[in-house]
């Protein structure tokens, strides 16, 4: 029974996108929808090949990935540190909470001009806007992770002789790791949105730039290739994060049976 259910699930999962692609292909070829704006998916293969060979698509992908990953690291590391501090020490929490909540609510792309003023128009500003966008997200998630740790764990550790420092390393840090990863997963989505937006507005390379330029020159097929690649990048980065999580937070990903 269970097996059948699973195979049905798999079939349905795959069927969705395939049906959509076929419908699109058919509608476009029969010109039911305008093929100029909705080029048939099959024609995108050729465009992709040309882009890779002649237009340095790989370079665009590379630079965008670099900006995302560098920005992610630059934002995540201090974000975790601040989040732990906010979770562990109430004065820091009370002091920073209003600020963090307010800044967190600002649409990230809105601070782009400010970031450019601060860090110039080079790579640094692209990395920094990603970093700043995710910093508070990671910090707030980490903080709530620390606060959500059952106080009994602290008692157990203290009862067995843990010092404050040992409490941090053996209780606060591992206890907040699942929440830290939740924050990082959300951040990845943010990072992708922000980098594409930034590249629309203020870059001369990158996948966002490529999409925007394709739109401006009405190369719709190129634009679609850019969209698909952005999707694949997001998916691949999430997968990478999942793999890291499996190594770092094995107890959360381990199944029910020993």
């Amino acid at each position, binding site marked *: 029974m269970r097996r059948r259910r699973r195979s049905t699930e798999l079939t349905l999962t795959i069927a969705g996108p395939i049906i959509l692609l076929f419908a699109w292909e058919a509608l476009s070829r029969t010109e039911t929808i305008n093929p100029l704006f909705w080029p048939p998916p099959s024609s995108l293969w050729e465009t992709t090949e040309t882009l890779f060979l002649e237009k340095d698509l790989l370079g665009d992908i590379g630079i965008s990935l670099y900006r995302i990953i560098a920005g992610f690291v630059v934002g995540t590391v201090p974000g975790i540190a601040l989040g732990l501090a906010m979770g562990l020490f109430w004065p820091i929490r009370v002091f920073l909470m209003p600020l963090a909540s307010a800044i967190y609510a600002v649409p990230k792309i809105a601070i782009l001009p400010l970031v450019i003023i601060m860090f110039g128009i080079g790579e640094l500003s692209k990395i920094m806007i990603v970093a700043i966008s995710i910093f508070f997200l990671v910090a707030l998630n980490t903080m709530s992770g620390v606060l959500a740790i059952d106080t009994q764990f602290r*008692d*157990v550790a203290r009862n067995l002789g843990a010092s404050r420092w040992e409490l941090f390393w053996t209780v606060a840090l*591992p206890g907040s790791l699942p929440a830290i990863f939740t924050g990082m997963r959300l951040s990845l989505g943010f990072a992708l949105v922000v980098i594409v937006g930034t590249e629309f507005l203020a870059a001369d390379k990158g996948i966002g730039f490529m999409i925007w330029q394709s739109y401006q020159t009405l190369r719709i097929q190129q634009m679609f290739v850019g969209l698909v690649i952005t999707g694949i990048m997001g998916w691949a980065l999430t997968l990478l994060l999942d793999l890291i999580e499996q190594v770092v937070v094995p107890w959360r990903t381990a199944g029910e049976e*020993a």
Partner: protein
Amino acid sequence: MAYVTGTPQPGAHHSPRRQPTLLKSRTVDSGARVVARHVGRRFTTTDGSVDACVDLDLTVEPGSFCVIVGPSGCGKSTFLRMIAGLDHPTTGTLDVSRPDGRTPTNAMVFHGRTLFPWLTLQQNVAYGLKLSGMDRNTRLERAQELLGMVGLVDFQRAWPHQVSEGMRQRVSIARALAVDPDLLLMDEPFGALDEQTRYLLQEELLRIWERTGKTVIFVTHSIDEALILADKIVVMSTHPGTIRKVIDVPFPRPRFLTEVRSDPAFADLFTTAWSILREEVETGGAFTEGTA
């Protein structure tokens, strides 16, 4: 092929639970003495102050098994936390000592889910040893031995969420025993278990205690459990928590569940304890109160 006597029977490789060689065994000196004199704990909140317990006078002899029973909110957990050093009395004195004058150690088995989810069962048991600075191999070996004692050696690499509540509770006990404390404090350790598992663990606890001679202070709601385990039962009243009566339990050691239950004195002692508790539960507001 002839059958040879003494050949391991099928299943014999499941060796009987190993005796941990690393736990101190019962000696004249084993166990801590706990002396409480007029111990009280007052919690002060913005709405005023509440006495969790007042004027507790109690002596627990080294190596004895003391069970505290009382209705919800009688401050028994607070008392236990104070003995553990996790909280301090606001009045009176609480003295934990060893007959030979050395500093006693204690370990507490907490109520509820308190295994660290981020450590395997083996790492959980080894946790206290890690804090005491024991090297990795020695402490993991010792943890394995203790898991063997509670029958869980096959599950040492499992995460806490992967095993049953009864297994987790066994591991909690092993974790507390790992540091070989003079005083073992247990806060309703079997409260969340089904009855059968409870019986098994009670017997297991008795065997461990008989062998090691630790002082045990055990908190429970169950008079039944108290009678099976205790040398001395402390019956507490509620709001604020005070000691109503101390009952000596005469059943011989080593004890077995079935023998204790069929002893005629069991019913008498049960009645004695229940008549006090009943009064407390009915008049003490355990029906109406919400604060523990």
